[in-house]
Structures are given as C-alpha cells and as structure tokens.
C-alpha cells in the first residue's frame, strides 16, 4: 500500500493541571494505511480526543512524532476534514453557507463547490434544508452539516472525534451508514480516523479497531475486523460481529473499565 497515511511514533502528551502533571497519552505508536478506516475506542478520559487533535497537528505532542505520508507534522494540517464532537457551526451562516466556508477558505471554484455542497447535503438527507440556519436544525441535522463541511474538499484524511456522541440511537445508526457510504464512494481514496466510545460503532465501521486503556491512554490491543462490506444493520445481530464486540468488552472488563459486580 506504499507509504503510511498516518504514523504515530511513541506519542506522549502531558497536561499541567491544578494538582500536578497528568499523563493523557503514553507512548502511542500506530500506523494507518491510505484508505484504511481505523476506529479508536476507549473509556472517557483516556485521551482519545487528544490523540485526534495531535494527529490533526492542532495540538503539539510532549514527546514523539506524528508523520503524514512520511513527513513530520509541525503545525495544523490542512489536508484533512475534521468532524468535532459538537457540530461547531457558525450560527450566522446557513447550512449551505457553513459547508461553503471550507470551500471559501480553500479558494475552491465557487460554482462547482456549491453544486458539490448541495449534493453532499442531499446525500445525508438535508435536501431542502440548505437555506436553514443552525438554530432551525435538529442536533442530528447540525452534525450532518458539519460532516458535509468536512468532506466538501474531498480530503485525503477524515478525522472524526466522537461525532455521534450527543445523538439519539436512530440518528446514530443512520449517520454511521451514511459515513460508511461516503467513505466507500471514495473507493479507498480517503483514510478515516474515527474516535468513539461506542464499541458497536467502531466494529461496524472499521477495518481495524484500536482499543485504549484508561488513563494514561495506551494502546491495549489492535483488532482486525474481517467482515464483508458494505456492512448492514442485520450484520450487527450476527455471531461474527458480536464476537468482535465481545472481545472489546472483555478487554474493558479485564482493565476494570467495565464491572459486572
């Protein structure tokens, strides 16, 4: 597959807090191939969001290196699309305007970008909502707009930080399917790094699932998910899928993240 898209080398991150230094991440090493869909699951507070910010070059590491296609990252990466936990929409722009912000910032030709923005919005079921303002949209719709904004420039790397954490389960299911669809449509021209605390979501979407330990965040185990694509909702009820989920949950039980009393 050639050069790695993303390589994390012995990455550590310390935070200074009121009562001393907290080690958020502890010597994380991970290689992600181009086009690969990798999820990172872990309990809250294990530093997985920090990991994504490091991978985006938005936060500096305390030790170690982030490499993208063999080159060390020293500042914010612009070859990415990012979906944050909250939609982070500009309240004074319409849904379309928010998606177009990315295009404007990058100086993409306006007409083509707008056509693509409308197409993306339609793909996630927001046709007819282009001129609505964020406060007129539901939480799920807002997050969909932010996904479109992250995709309009066809980035080679999509970074998602618990994007569905605040949504109801039906909306989550739909968006997970949408993400899979959009990723497959790019035919492995887009690498996805997906942070979640949902084991099901991680197994459903990923080629590989990275399981993290509680603080300090370390990589506990990396699992290959060998299930055919596109994955369907029915597959979630079947033994192979459940076996993978079980494996992750067993790890969490062993580490004391989960407790069966």
């Amino acid at each position, binding site marked *: 597959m050639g050069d790695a898209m993303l390589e994390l080398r012995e990455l550590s991150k310390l935070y200074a807090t009121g009562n001393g230094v907290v080690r958020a991440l502890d010597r994380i090493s991970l290689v992600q191939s181009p086009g690969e869909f990798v999820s990172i699951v872990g309990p809250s507070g294990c530093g997985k969001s920090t990991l994504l910010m490091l991978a985006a070059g938005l936060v500096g590491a305390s030790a170690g290196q982030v490499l993208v296609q063999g080159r060390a990252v020293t500042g914010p990466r612009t070859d990415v699309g990012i979906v*944050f936990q909250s939609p982070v929409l500009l309240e004074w722009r319409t849904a379309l305007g928010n998606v177009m912000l990315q295009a404007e910032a*990058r100086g993409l030709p306006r007409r083509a970008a707008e056509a693509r923005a409308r197409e993306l919005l339609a793909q996630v079921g927001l046709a007819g909502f282009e001129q609505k*303002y964020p406060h007129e949209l539901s939480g799920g719709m807002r997050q969909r707009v932010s996904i479109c904004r992250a995709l309009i420039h066809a980035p080679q790397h999509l970074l998602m930080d618990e994007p569905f954490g605040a949504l109801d389960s039906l909306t989550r299911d739909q968006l997970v399917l949408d993400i899979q669809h959009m990723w497959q449509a790019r035919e492995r021209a887009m690498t996805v790094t997906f942070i979640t605390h949902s084991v099901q979501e991680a197994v459903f979407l990923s080629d590989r699932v990275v399981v993290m330990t509680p603080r300090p965040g370390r990589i506990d185990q990396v699992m290959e998910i060998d299930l055919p694509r596109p994955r369907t909702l029915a597959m979630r009820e079947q033994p192979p899928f459940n076996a993978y989920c079980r494996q992750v949950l067993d790890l969490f039980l062993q580490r004391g993240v989960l407790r069966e009393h």
Partner: protein
Amino acid sequence: MAEDALLRLEAVLLTARRRLEWRRRLATVLAPSVAVLVLLLFWEYGARLFAIPPYLLPGPQVVLASMRENAAALWTQGLVTTWEIVLGFALSVAVGLPLALAIFLWQPFARAVYPLMIASQAMPKVAVAPLFLVWFGFGLLPKVLIGFLICFFPIVINTVMGLHGIEREKIYLAQSMGLGSAATFFKIRLPNALPAIFGGLKIAITLAVVGAVVGEFVGGDAGLGYLLITANGNMDTALLFAGIVCLTVIGVVLFLLVELAERLLLPRHAVGGGAARDAA
C-alpha cells in the same frame, strides 16, 4: 373524502393558532401598558387621597400639565441633552472598539492599559466633572467627555470578552481549513463577538444618558440636567418630574435604536427571535 375534510379542518386550526400567536404578541405590549396605567392611577389618587403637597409629589396630571406648559423648553433642552448623549456614545464607540481590538491583539498593551481602565471606572465621574469644567468650560465638550468616560468601559470590556470568548473548536476548524489569521478574524471571530459587542453598546447607551446629565448638573447652561437643577431651585417639582420623564423617554428611545441596529445587523444571532424565524 373524509381525509380531505380533516386536512381542511387542520388548516383552519393552524391559521387560528397563528392568530393566537398574534394575540400573544399583542399581550406582550398590552400587559406592561396596563401595569403602567395602574401605577399612574395609583399615583394620581394616592397623591390626592393622602393630600400630599404638589411640591413633594405632584400627581401625573400636574406633571402632564407642566409638560404641556413647558413643552418648548423641554423640547429645546431635550435636544441639547440628546445631542450630548449621542456624541458621548459615538465617541466611546469610536475609541472603545479600536482600543478593545488593540487590547485583544497585543498582550503587553492589554497589561499596561487594563489597570488604568479599571481605575477610570472606579473613579467617580461626578468627582472629575468639575475638573472638566475648569479645563473645557461650560459648553458641549465636557458633557461629551464625561459621557465618554462613563460608557466606553462596557464597550471595551464586552468587545474584548466577545473576541476572546470563542469555542476552541472554531479556531481549530479555521486552522484545519488553512484560513489565515486575518480571514479567521473577519469570517469567524468578529461575527462571533458581535452579540457581546452589542451587549456592551446597549449598556453604554443607557450610561451615556447618565453622563450627559451629570455633566449638565455640574456646569451647564443648557440641557435637561440644567433644567432639572433650575426646577429644583424653584421648588417646581412638577417640572422636575417632567424633565425626568423626558430623560427616560430619550434613554428608552436611544436604547431601542441600538437594539434595532442589532436586529438589522444580526438577525440570525437572536436565536428564537421572532424576526429571524419569520424571515427564514
């Protein structure tokens, strides 16, 4: 067929509800009007019932009569005061906004200037008014300057707070899009700060009224503040009340003008605001 009829009924119900919405809006105007009316009646008949002498508490009718009698003076003096208020406010906007920008952009400047600003606020403006009188005489300038001194502070503080108070993710987003710092400022940070800035402007306009009146109290030969002092000297309490009413009206109207500007400039920021919803 039956379904069709049901739908028609639903439509009728919806329009009816729409009308009720109107009624609710009317109520938001009506309720305070009734409250004011009740208060006025209470005042009028309370003053009569307890036989309070008019030099202590003239009833609304007496005040109204005084307003009618002194309409010309109230109008001309009111214009003088309004002009002072507007100029003081304009000066604080003209100085406050660039000052806030400088404070936001340049840390050492912020550190140097902040204590001075806070001292300027802690200092009672009434106390410096005589000084301004010595320096700038009895004219317009000292009133404008006192107004400025009182109302630039909330503008600066709110603007600085608005510029700083942005979600970190919005800045991350801009960085990941390769947006330059100037573009980030104008496309994201400044519009994001506008509601806070308008909050400051609204506080400032009400304080500007205080500034102008204080200036006129200390050393004026015109304006409603001067009129109040004179009325007070003549024990003309009705005129005193009339002046206060005029000042209140001026203050409220100016405040509403600032609010109108806010609505026109940022209809989308007022989340849940009726105007934004109707327009969409």
